[in-house]
C-alpha cells in the first residue's frame, strides 16, 4: 500500500483532485477540515512526490493557490483504490 496516501488529509486531497480538473486551496481546506499550515505541509509532500501540480497566482492582490493531479498521481490513486477494494473483499 502507498504510504503517501495513507494519511487521511492527503487521501482527501487526492480524492478531490481525481474528480476535478482543478481545486483551490480554500476549497481543499474546507473539504479536508484541516488548518492552513497542515494543508500546506500535506500539499508540499504530495508535490514532492510528483502526485500533484501546484499553481500560484495573484488574484485581487491576494496570492491564490490551485492544485491539479498529475499522471503519476492518478496512477498511484487508482492503484491505492484497487488495493483497498482487494483488501476489503479478502476480509
Amino acid at each position, binding site marked *: 500500500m502507498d504510504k503517501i496516501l495513507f494519511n487521511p488529509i492527503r*487521501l482527501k486531497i487526492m*480524492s*478531490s483532485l481525481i474528480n*476535478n480538473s482543478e481545486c*483551490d486551496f480554500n476549497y481543499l481546506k474546507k473539504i479536508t477540515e484541516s488548518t492552513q499550515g497542515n494543508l500546506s505541509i500535506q500539499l508540499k509532500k504530495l508535490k514532492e512526490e510528483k502526485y500533484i501540480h501546484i499553481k500560484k497566482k495573484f*488574484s485581487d492582490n491576494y496570492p491564490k493557490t490551485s492544485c491539479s493531479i498529475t499522471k503519476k498521481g492518478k496512477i498511484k490513486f487508482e492503484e491505492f483504490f484497487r488495493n483497498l*477494494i482487494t483488501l476489503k473483499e479478502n476480509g
Partner: protein
Amino acid sequence: MNSTEQQIEIINSIIKSTKENLKPLSVNFIFWGVLIIAMSLFNYAFPSVFQSAQYSGLLFWTVLPLIGFILNIYYNIKIRKKAGYETYLSRVIKIIWGVFNLSWIYIIALSYTLKSFHPIPPILFLLGIILIITGLIIKFKPITLGGIFLTIFTFYLNFNPGINLFLVNVIGLSFGVLLPGLSLFYSKSDNKSDG
C-alpha cells in the same frame, strides 16, 4: 491509522461532495439568447440605422457581442472562484464553447472579406452542432433538441434563401438557445454529480 472501510468511505464522501452546478451554463444560454434576439430584432426593425453609415452594421455586430463576451467571461470567472473547484465536465464544456467562439470570429471575419457570404447560416449550423454536443454531455434533452432544431432549420434555409436572416436568427436563437436555457434554469436537477 485508518481501516480499509474508513479509507473507502473518505474517498466516496469526497467524490460525492463535488456537485456539477449547471445553473451558470443556463444563465449563459439565456444571456446570449436574449442579446442576439434583441440585436436581430433591432436590426430587422430599423434597417435605416445600418444603411446610414458604412461600418454601422460591422460595429453593431462586433462591438456588442464583444461586450457580451467580456461580461460573460467575467461572470464565469466569478462563478468558478465562488465554487473553488472546476470539474472535468465544466472544463470540457468551457473548451467546446471556446472553440465555438473562435469559429464565430473566423466566420464573421470571412463574411467581411467575401461580400457574398452571409455569416448567419453557418453560425447557426455550428451553434446547432455545439448545442447537440453540450446537451449529450450534460444529459439534458431540451438542449440536444434545441441543437437538432437548429441543424434542421439551417438545412431548410438552404432551400429557402429569400427568408430574412435576422428573423431566422430570432427563430433559431429562441428555439435553439433561449428556450432550452430557460428549461435548464428552471430544471429541478440543477445539481448533477456525474462530473
